[in-house]
């Protein structure tokens, strides 16, 4: 990397900028109103799949420490483009029919040729042998709705991001 001619102040500003892109959102100054964002979180149905400090559902990633563990751009992208760069392991939507006829639907917390660890909508864990599964349907996209860019206004998105950025367990 070539040396720069930046002043000390400019260097520190650059460091702060990079940290804002990569450091936890909870450590940044975020525009928006977290209280209003909490309302957006509630009215948008987020708690139907996600949980924060035990409130909500268990299908999707827990958000109690989302601000303390993810940079703001990552949180923003996860809301607006949930299927982009999707990392399936642990968040794959599956439905299965067992050989005994029972049907289950939920998130595959893990899956191999030999076993399936599925959590259903009610929060029950099902630890299955794949030999007991007759049919399995895997959703190719994120179970998270992909239309929040349209459903949320600019202000709502800003406030929701402020609320999520404030979610830190420390």
């Amino acid at each position, binding site marked *: 990397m070539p040396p720069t001619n930046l002043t000390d102040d400019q260097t520190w500003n650059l460091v702060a900028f990079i940290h804002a892109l990569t450091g936890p959102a909870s450590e940044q100054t975020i525009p928006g109103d977290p209280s209003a964002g909490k309302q957006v979180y509630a009215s*948008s*149905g*987020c708690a*139907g*799949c*996600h*949980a924060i*400090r*035990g409130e909500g*559902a*268990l*299908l*999707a990633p*827990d958000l*109690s*420490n989302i601000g*303390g563990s993810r940079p703001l751009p990552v949180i923003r992208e996860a809301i607006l483009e949930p299927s982009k760069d999707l990392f399936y392991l*642990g968040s794959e939507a599956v439905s*299965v029919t067992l050989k005994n006829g029972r049907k289950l639907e939920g998130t595959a*917390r*893990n899956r*191999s*040729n*030999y*076993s399936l*660890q599925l*959590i259903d*909508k*009610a*929060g*029950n*864990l099902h*630890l299955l*042998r*794949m*030999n007991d*599964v*007759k*049919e*399995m*349907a*895997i*959703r*190719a*996209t994120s*179970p*998270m*709705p992909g239309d929040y860019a349209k459903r949320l206004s600019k202000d709502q998105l800003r406030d929701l991001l402020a609320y999520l950025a404030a979610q830190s*367990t*420390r």
Partner: protein
Amino acid sequence: MRYCLLLLASAAALMAQVKHEDILKGPRADWLTYAGNYQGWRYSPLTQITAANARMIAPKWVYRVPDAKRLASSPIVYDGVLYITDTNSIYAVDARSGRQIWQWADPRAKSQGVNRGSAILGNRVYLTTADNFLVALDRRSGGVIFMKKFADEKKGTTSTSAPLIVKDKVIVGSAGGDSGMRGFVAALSADDGHEIWRTYTVPARGEPGSESWGDLIEWGGGATWLSGTYDPELNTLFWTTGNPWPDFAGATRKGDNLYTCSLVSLDLDTGKMKWHFQFTPHDTHDWDAQSWPILVDTEINGKPRKAVLHANRNGFFYALDRVTGEFLRATKLIDNLTWAKGIDAKGRPIEIPGQDPTPEGNWVCPSVKGATNWMGQSYNPLTGLLYVITLEQCGRYNMSSQVPKPMSNFSGGGATEEGGQVIIRALDPKTGKRAWEYPVTGAGRMWTGTVSTAGGVLFTGDDDGHFVALDAKTGKNLWHFNMGELSTASPITYSVDGKQFVAIASATSVFSFGLFEPADPATPPITTVVK
């Protein structure tokens, strides 16, 4: 998000949850608390694996714990899920397949250190971080329910032990006694982590017991870095305490240094100390009392007793009356013991003069690691024997003349550990005598505990990285397996769908074993990908 709004509330109420009464019953298919039951037995009634068929044991799965280097955790198991901890982290694993279900880690923790395990109640699994947060997670998802700070790492305290859950309380201890701190046992609310009571193991100046100290009482140690046991009938906790600080330099702390190197009996509801018994007054060899207080009703000296048994690092095996704290008996746990002639009628060591650390170094047995240590012991009610990992090892103890400075990695000196022979010993609680012993090869580095079963099998690790099964009655070897690295944790046993497993953490991984079964070829399901 919208597809899952409706079905939450009603179904959640129907799910199985761990109740205090479940822990009270002791292990069945599940293993719900660090030592299996409140009495500290590490004993399971499972009988599928027996002394007769143990030669058919085979590995079932291995789970490599991410980034683990020296696991010290004893797993718990509930409803087919095994939970294993490491430093500031916990992993939920399918107990039948070894596949990870979720993991939680806190990379922002301000301290690092070993973690010995987790606890479970309701739908929550609990652990502590090295910087003293009690963490409650949803057992199914790993989602955080709360994190509550209970001690200040800036005062030298860290946390390593598995929490003990009794009724609605999470009992936690404290570590850090080798650098100066003030030890305590605390009861925190299982609901939200708030403190219910805290009992210090070193008195404040002016309090009873403070006369047994000198200048450094505020940093006196008495850490409580191992979980304790609980007697539901007496509603009493039994907790052991660590060494006084500075470990090897006793001149600044003249006196017995209460309540270090002791067993304390605490009321569950208030934390009030009912009695204490000090095994090693004015310890100068770092012989914490951190070894299990095991609660057994048995005959001692010809009388039925509610006893608490304790194999101590100082080389003696004690029996006390757990109602009153009365000293009942002490016998030698090891053969190489040079610092005391024995234990007197009141339970105080009859010390041999000249055994303290010196600037030049003083050769004393047992070594600083102790005649035994925190590795889990097992009491089997069917054999009536207590199984203890013992170490015949001596060492040279040095004392520093440096002025003690707390929280500076200064322990007042140091000690060597030279050679050593690990011997697994079966002790008769009635007499304190050995029923059998099983010496193992190795360099005296072993920290593995035990578990025993109604199938008549004792499982433990050895000093060379093997996991072994012994006949619980005779000590005869039944089976062994080379894990490829030394284990520093205690095994457990559990059952899923009627099949018994035995699990133990090695340095980096969890191994689970069961009886051999012919392979079941995989028959993959018809799979479709929905665009």
